[in-house]
Each structure stands twice: as C-alpha cells, then as structure tokens.
C-alpha cells in the first residue's frame, strides 16, 4: 500500500508545527493582539523574514533540487511586490483624492479623479499620465492575478529561451544575473512607468482599513506564515513524488536524464516558472510590510544573497533553506541595525555595522569549502545519519559531475 504523503515526510509535520507555534507565540506577545512584549516593528521584521523564508524555499527548489543556480529570483520577488504595490498606491491615492475633491463645489467626474490620482502618483517623476502598465491598477483582483502572471510569464519566456538553447551551469547563472540587471536598470528609468528610483511608497497603509499598524502587522504575519506553510507543503509534495526524482536526476546528470527519454527542458521550465510564481507571492506579501519598494531591491546582489542564505542553510533540503534565510537575514538585521555590541581589541574597535559584511563573506566561503551541507547538515549529525564512505568518487564520467557527497540528498 502507498504510504501517505505525511508519513513519507515527517519533517513537513514538524515544520508546520513549529511554524504554527511560532505564529501563535508572536501573536500572543504582540502589541496588537497580545501582551505587547514584541514591538510592532519587530513583528514586521518577523513577518518579512517569513516571506524571505518562502522565497528561500523556492530557491532551494530551483537550485538545491534542480541544479539551476538562478541569480534572478529576487527580480520575480520584486516584480510581485511592484504588482501589489501598484494597487495599494492607486487605491490609497484614490481615497485621498476623492476625499479632497468632495470638498469642491462640484462633484468630480471619474476622469477628473483619475487625472488627479495620476498627478499625485507621477508628479514626482514629472508626469501625470498613467502608463499602460497601470491599466488594471484600480482592480485588486486583477492586480492579484498579475502578481503571479507577470513574473510567471517573464520566467516562462526567459526560461524557454535559455533552456531550449541548452544554456546550463555558470552560463545560465550569469544570464539570469544579466536579466535581473536589465530589469533593475529598466525600472531605474523615470519613464519606465513605475516612478523610477523613487519606487512605490506608503505601501504599509492598507486602503480602507482603519485598524492600526499594530493589528495590520499581525494580519500580515499570519498571511506570511500561511503562505510559507502552503509553499512548504507544495514544495515538499513536488520533491517527494516522481517529479522530484526526475528533477534531482537533472541536477545530478542532465544528459543521462535526457537520454532516458525525459524532456529535460519541460521539467526545468516548469520548476523555474513555478518557483518564480512562489517568489512573486512572497514579494507581494513582503513589500506591504516593508512599506516601500524601489529598483534597488531588484539589483543582482539581492539574488546572490538569496543563494548565500540557501547555501548556508543547506541546499537540497527544504527546512535548510528556511533555516538559512531566517538565521542569516535576522542576523543581518541584528548586526547592521547597530544592536550588536562592538568588540574592542584595544588598538581597534570592531564595529559590526562595518564588519558584518566581511564576516558574512568569509563565513560563506568557509561554508562552501568545508560544510556544503550548511546548517541543515547538523540535523544529519543529530539523526546520526551518515553518508556511505566511498572516498568521494565521482558519480559521472566527467570532473564536472557532482560527487557522491553532494548528490546524496
């Protein structure tokens, strides 16, 4: 008899339990619903961290399981944020404009309202007309569809172009990085229609919601936790089935899988597009909590940090990605926020604001060199699971194919 999905993946249940416990604990301790031990801004940080964990799960799926080192997933994340940000900004501005116009002698016509919204939003880039891409900004439903559709389509087209010409390995990484750079540069322009380097702002205010930020931050925490839980289950389900075996096969030896008759391109494209959509949803939940989005967020460096998180957490295991994203991004906030105590060496004081990046870079190199399993590898020690010692022989005929140690997950 087939064992059930949960029985095959006990770790999913553990993860969901921890996630629910965490969410309940934060809710109880929050200012909005509980005893007020955790400040609202920290609740937001935690909520944002959950979104980052979700995109890390997506990254793990595409890199850790399929072997595509995409340096472009933060572009999809940002695009998702832009799509939801357009509605938030449009609707909030509309409410303000309607409010102010209602005080005039004559009630405004619909076109006057739209013009006034345009002037409000685009005045900062010296324009007042709505570009074509804002055509659906007045509808929450359509804009929510676009959150998934736009990044998904971009991933589909880009992935189709890249995979069908058999661009693999580091070339693909560089190509995705170039795509991210192109997108960021495009958005930096004032006439891109998304307010250039000003980006979209004021996203933390939900239009029509009178509840305070204390409450709204908890709502978003719940939404992020729910999205992370669902995303995790989806990812776990994908990698546990036949599909998961094929994509792992692609990671370990693409040519062999192709010769076995699988359409490698379709599998890769499916994973790439799906993870892009997950990343976009994570972004759509992240930026209302951050309050502002600008092209700086999409810069290639962000996507590389994403790879860093997943690598430190442990590739090829979903909980590793979540741990990596949570630990590294929270540590980053702690160190760069100036909260970490300075270390005095007598002749020089190490200020963590300045030295955190150096520490991160070096520890990243060390993890890559000495602990390819990342933090997640510690669980193997705990579970007393050992890799068979085959002296690290090659799995495949070439040097470039993965060694036993890495391919095992």
């Amino acid at each position, binding site marked *: 008899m087939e064992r059930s999905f949960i029985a095959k993946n006990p770790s999913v249940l553990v993860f969901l339990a921890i996630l629910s416990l965490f969410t309940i604990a934060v809710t109880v301790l929050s200012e909005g619903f509980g005893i007020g031990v955790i400040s609202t801004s920290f609740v937001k940080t935690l909520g944002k961290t959950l979104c980052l964990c979700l995109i890390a799960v997506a990254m793990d799926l595409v890199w850790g399981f399929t072997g595509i080192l995409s340096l472009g997933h933060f572009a999809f994340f940002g695009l998702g944020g832009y799509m939801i940000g357009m509605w938030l900004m449009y609707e909030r501005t509309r409410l303000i404009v309607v409010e102010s116009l209602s005080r005039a002698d*004559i009630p405004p016509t619909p076109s006057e309202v739209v013009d006034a919204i345009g002037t409000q939003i685009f005045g900062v880039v010296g324009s007042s007309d709505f570009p074509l891409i804002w055509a659906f900004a007045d509808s929450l439903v359509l804009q929510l569809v676009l959150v998934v559709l736009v990044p998904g389509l971009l991933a589909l087209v880009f992935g189709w172009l890249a995979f069908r010409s058999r661009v693999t390995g580091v070339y693909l990484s560089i190509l995705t990085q170039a795509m991210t750079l192109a997108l960021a540069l*495009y958005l930096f322009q004032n006439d891109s229609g998304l307010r250039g380097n000003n980006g979209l702002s004021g996203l933390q205010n939900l239009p029509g919601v009178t509840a305070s930020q204390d409450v709204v931050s908890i709502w978003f925490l719940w939404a992020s936790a729910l999205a992370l839980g669902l995303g995790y289950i989806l990812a776990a389900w994908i990698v546990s089935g036949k599909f998961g075996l094929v994509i792992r096969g692609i990671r370990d030896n693409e040519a062999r899988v192709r010769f076995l008759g699988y359409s490698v391109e379709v599998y890769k494209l499916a994973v790439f597009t799906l993870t892009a959509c997950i990343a976009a949803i994570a972004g759509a939940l992240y930026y209302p909590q951050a309050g502002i989005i600008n092209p700086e967020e999409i810069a290639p460096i962000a996507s*590389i940090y994403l790879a860093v998180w997943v690598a430190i957490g442990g590739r090829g295991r979903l909980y590793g990605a979540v741990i990596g994203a949570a630990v590294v991004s929270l540590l980053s906030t702690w160190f760069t926020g100036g909260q970490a105590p300075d270390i005095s060496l007598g002749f020089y004081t190490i200020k963590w604001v300045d030295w955190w990046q150096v520490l991160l870079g070096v520890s990243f*190199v060390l993890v890559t060199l000495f602990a390819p399993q990342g933090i997640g590898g510690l669980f193997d020690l705990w579970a007393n699971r050992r890799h068979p010692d085959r002296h690290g022989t090659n799995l495949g005929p070439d040097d470039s194919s993965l060694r036993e140690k890495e391919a095992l997950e």
Partner: protein
Amino acid sequence: MLRLFLASLAILCACLTANAQETGLQPILQAHQDIIAKSSRKTIGPAIDAIAASDLPQAQVMLETWAAKDMWMRKSDGLFFAGKKAEGRSYELIDFDTGEVVGTYQKSDLKQLKPNSGIRAMIGTALVTFQLTDPNRDKRLAALQSIQRDPEAALLAPLRASIDGEPDAALKAQKQRLERLLSIGFDEDTTARVAAITDMSGDLGVDVRAALNPLVVTTRQVAVELPGNANIAAILKPGSEALTRDAAYDLLVANELAAPRVSADDIRAALAANIEGGRVGDVPVAQLDSDAKRVQAYSVLAEAGTVPAFITPADVDAALGAHVFFEVFSEPSAEVTAAAEKALERIELKVGLNQTLDLSLDAISLASIYFLAAIGLAITFGVMGVINMAHGEFIMMGAYTGYVVQQFIPDHTLSIIVAIPMAFAVTFAMGVAMERLVIRWLYARPLETLLATFGISIALQQLAKNIFGTQARPLTAPGWLDGAWVLNDVVSISYIRIAIFVLAMIFLGLFLYIMKRTRLGLEMRAVTQNPRMAGSMGINPGRVNMLTFGLGSGIAGIAGVAIGLFAKVTSDLGSDYIVQSFMTVVVGGVGNIWGALAGAGMIGGLQKGIEWMNPSNTLAAQTYMIVFIIIFIQFRPRGIIALKGRAAGD
C-alpha cells in the same frame, strides 16, 4: 650734431601734439557734451560714433577710461578729463589729447560719468575697432573673440579694414573667416551674403551653423490673405501633419482671430461660479459628476447668455477656412534663405558623416574599456573555466593601489608608472592566495566556485569601504593625458581614451605572446585541455593553475589603474564592470582572446549605437543591450567565436 637733431625732433613732436590739440578729441567731446553728460543709452549713439570716427589714437584710451568710469567733467567749463584719485577727496585730471596733468580738483567741482551697462556695451563695440589694429597680438585676439561672442553689423566694416594690415598669418585667417561669417548675417548687399554663404557651406564649425541657423528661422503666422511682400517658407494646410486642426485653431485664438474653445476646466469654473440654490442651469449640483450632465448645464447657462457659447465643429471649420496659415522667414531676402537652406543641408550631411565617425570612435573607446576589464576574465574564466565573481574587486584593488601610490609620489606621471607594476603585484599576490586557499578545492564544482568567489567579493568590497571610506577617491591622470584630440567641431576624442585603447592593444599583444610563445603559455594550454595528461608530461598542474590565475588577476589590477583614471574610485567600482565583463567573454566565446575582443567590440558598439538612438537615456541603452545579448545567446550559445571539437567540451 645728434643732440641738436634730437632736440629739434622733440620740438617738432611738441608742435605736432599742440597742433592735434586744436583738432583733437576734446572738441568732439564738447560737440556732444550734453548727451555724454546725460548718459542715456538711447541718445548716446552719435557721440560714440563721432569719437570712433575721429580715428585719433587717443580715442581708444578715452573710451577705455570712460567705460572704466574714470572720466570726469569739470563743472566750471564742461571739459572732459581722465581722473585719477589724489589725496583726500580730490582728483588729478589728465587731458586726453596731451596726456598732461591739468591739475588737481576737489570732487565737488567735478562730475563723474558713470555709463550704464548698455552704454558700456556700445563703448565696447567702438573699442573693438581700435583693438583690431592694436599692435599687441593678444589684444587683437581678444577683440576677435569678443566679435565672435557678440557679432554686430557695425563691426563688419572695421573688421574688413583690419584684414589687410594683419601681420600674423593665423590671426589673419581667423579674421577672414570671421569676416565671412559676419557677411552672412550683416552685409547689406544680398549677392555678397549669398556668396559668403556659398563660401562657408562646406565648413563644419559650430559658428557657421550658428550664423546660418538664424537665417532659416521661421515663425508660424495666420492671416486672411497671404501677404505679398513676406518671405514665405511654406503654406500650411490645417489638418495636415505639420499643422493639426487643433494647433491651427489655437493659432487663430492666439492671434485673436477666433473665440477660444471652452475647455473642461472652463466649464467647471463657470458651473462653480453659477450655482444657485443647489442647482446649476436646472441640473442639481450632485448630478454634475459626469461630462454629459456638465455640458447640459453649461448649455443652459450659455443660452441664458451668462457664459460664452460653445465653439461647435462648424465654427472651427468656418474659422479655419477663412484664414490662411503659413510660415514666414524672419530673414526678408528669399535668395539668402534659399542659399542658407542649401548650405545647411550640405553641412548637415557632412556633420552626419562626421558624427558617425565620432560615434565609432566612442564605441571603440568603450569597447577597449570593456576589453580591458574583461581580458583578465578571458584568462581565468575563458582559459581556466573558473568563474571569479571577485574579478571586479581585483579591478577595484588595482584602482585603489593607484590611489595609494599617488599619496606617496606626488608626480602624476611617475606615480602612474610606479602604480602599474604595483597594482599588478598586489592583485597577482591576491589572486595566487585566492587560488591556493579557495579555488583549488572547488575545480570540480564550478557553481560553488561562483558562490565562494562571490563571498570573497562582498568581503573585499566591505573591507575597501572600511579602509578607504565610502566617498570617491581621486586617481588623477598625468597632465599630458588631459585634453582631447580635436579633429573638428564634431569629432574629438580625449587623450585618456586613446591611451586606454593603446593599453588594451598592448594587453592583447601581451596575452597572445604569453599564450603562444612562452613556456608558461604552453603549459597553461596543456593543463587546460587535459590536466592529467599534462601532469604525466612533467608539468605541475597546481603550479600552472596558480600562475594562470595570478596572471589574470594581475591584469585585472592594471585594468583597474586605467579605469580609475577616468572613473571614480569607489568600493563599487568593480561591481559596475563585472556583469559587462562576463557578458563580453560569454558573447565573444569562452576560451578565445579574439572572441573577447569581438565581444567587447560588439557590446561597446551596440551600447553606443543604442545611446545614439536615445541619447538622453544610458540606462535604457544598457537595458536593451542586455536584452539583446540574452537573445543573441539563443542563436550562438557558444559565442561569436566558438571553439570546435574536443576543446569545446563542457
């Protein structure tokens, strides 16, 4: 005997001066005493003309004194003198004609002449006439430049007169050129102007276009009938592409030949002004939130006569039909405008060709920058297959090395000469260390090399920030690299870019020499193709890899010095180039230096080409370029120059 002669000469001179005094400047000044004393821009003209026309040498001194507000009038007799401040509140007066001191007077007995800026400009024009024939070359040059800045009809005659007497050949040529330009604008004879235009029609100078362009300036006009005497450029038909119906009607409104249309804002304002008891023209105010209702309410008001009526399309048709629209040259002579248009057309073509040349030079220079940044990568990535994301940081380290060297060696030329080997040494050492400590262990795992070197890259960037701060550091080029090689007014290229091009070519040669002619190059190629076989031939692959990586890194350091000369040296310097560098290598074809060259040429040319089409927007140019590259990779996944056979294996 000689003394006697000199004495008589002195007497003769004195007599001559005395003679000049009678017919000198003072009588002219006295003739215009009123208007000079009044100092009004409108009336001063004849006085300045008379002074300039006197052709007296002292007139120049007098005009200069006047412009400097040092001319005084003696109140007792109204005579003008140059004043020089003496003790207290008294002034020493000097006669213009004789140059002798007349005496010292109290300020209360004198009146200072203070010409305003308008008058000083007129005095300046009059002075140019004198300066054009001044014995001092610098003054003549200054006068020419002043004419160039501010050409005027009055200057044409003195300029022409001064050409023949000009001893300096270069100045003479300049004067002749300026005379042609002034003739275009100001000669009274139309044939002479046309001749001048034809003479200059092959010239690329900006000044020629500046002289010709005002001649073909047109203004758009409207009238009931076409005026017979105007120099008409074109007759416009409303509704055509050149003149839309809206624009035509607006022109009529602007000329008060038709009533203005009622805009949405007008309607709104009119309605707001005519609210009566919550209704406007029988429509409740609350219903006025659509255009149809507003128009309805407004029509009621218009019928009542409270507001101006709507302009119907029929009104517009009638108004447009009743008038003729045309463009008029501000220059009255048709022959001149025709010649000018023809000349401008010829110049435009020539300018276009030269701009293409200029653009190609720009593209080559950009390509050589990319090539320089990428050549190190062509070794580490192209030959060894190692992805080094810290390559940009090696460029940055090279630039900072140059900066540090300049702190110790103030002479810029010497410091650059020292900085180049220093930068090579620093980055070579860094590259060797990195290869030994990190990359060596990851040869079998290319993706992880990418990540590990990226970790090094962020650590190095932050270290640079901690050491040098976030502000840009200057790396000053030696003086002989300042300036530009100017071919004409359109084509020019700065020396620093030429130097970078030369440097890129030197590196190309160096690379080829090392790879093809040295033992190290041979071993490098052997190790790259088959490390085990090379090892069994007695080559130490570890050592060769280390040296190869060091070489690539060292070249990146030198590139950093060159890039630092024209870009700001900041900790982000490298990351600005890293993606382009990888693109260059990937597009060109991995493992082939000619590929990198072709890739750099293509990317540089493309970027400049796109910038030319959309000049205001370099961001867009980069975006489109990257998109183009992504598409290009579709068709040639292995780059422009792809390796074939076994060497091309993954």
